[in-house]
């Protein structure tokens, strides 16, 4: 897998009023027909202080078109989807690099046995933390309910994904705790 997409990036340096944000970048990416991943280059950030957010759409709709996103280095973000669909998955992403970060935790988990996954993390103050979760599933189905999920802090040491149905499901998460 190489760098598949490298579209234009809007990048902003923030200073002054928004004291907790070091930089913001926006951009686009796509996962091509029959592919399951795409890696894009971004302007350099401190990955240990950054999160990636996304919105997406596909040409048609398979549950397997739904992408996950993770920062894999200071200069790269990777998007994966669960099924090598004939559709393109179109992605709009934002990378936010924060100041005043106490910790960043992240990971990826798999579930094929239930509609809920609890993930243990190191303790955080949930009142000072951001949680971002994305999900992808191996499915050529078209039932929208299979693409719906929530992610939440279940406790200071656990995050919980909840979704519908038993499918090969991959859960990608990021937790940033601020000072």
């Amino acid at each position: 897998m190489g760098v598949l997409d490298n579209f234009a990036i809007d990048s902003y340096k923030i200073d002054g009023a928004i004291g907790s944000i070091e930089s913001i970048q926006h951009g686009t990416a796509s996962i091509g027909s029959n592919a399951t991943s795409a890696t894009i280059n971004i302007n350099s950030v401190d990955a240990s202080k950054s999160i990636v957010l996304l919105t997406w759409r596909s040409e048609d709709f398979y549950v397997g078109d739904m992408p996950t996103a993770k920062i894999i280095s200071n200069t790269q973000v990777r998007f994966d989807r669960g099924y090598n669909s004939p559709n393109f998955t179109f992605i709009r992403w934002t990378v936010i690099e924060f100041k005043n970060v106490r910790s960043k935790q992240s990971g990826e988990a798999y579930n094929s046995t239930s509609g809920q996954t609890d993930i243990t993390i190191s303790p955080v103050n949930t009142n000072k933390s951001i949680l971002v979760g994305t999900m992808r599933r191996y499915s050529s189905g078209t039932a929208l309910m299979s693409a719906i999920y929530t992610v939440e802090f279940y406790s200071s040491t656990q995050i919980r994904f909840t979704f519908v149905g038993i499918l090969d499901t991959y859960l990608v998460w990021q937790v940033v705790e601020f000072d």
Partner: protein
Amino acid sequence: MIHLAELNENNVCIGVKTVMYMIDDGKHVEIPSSDFEYYVWRKYENGEWSTEKYEPKTTASLGEFEDMQQRISDLEAAIAAILGGAGV
């Protein structure tokens, strides 16, 4: 920060994470990087990672779940139509 692999009941990796501290629940093992694609499905035995990957059999065939849901919806609609017709 440390990188951990999460193991299932068969000591097969089902997730990776980067966290602040070791999670001492008997299900986590420290790894040098949180490379999900590398570690997932490998078995951790005697302090070593297998070269073989023990990928689980898919619990439902591709689209099977959705197909079943659609069949249930179709049956419910059919039953409703029958019951509705009987009531006329």
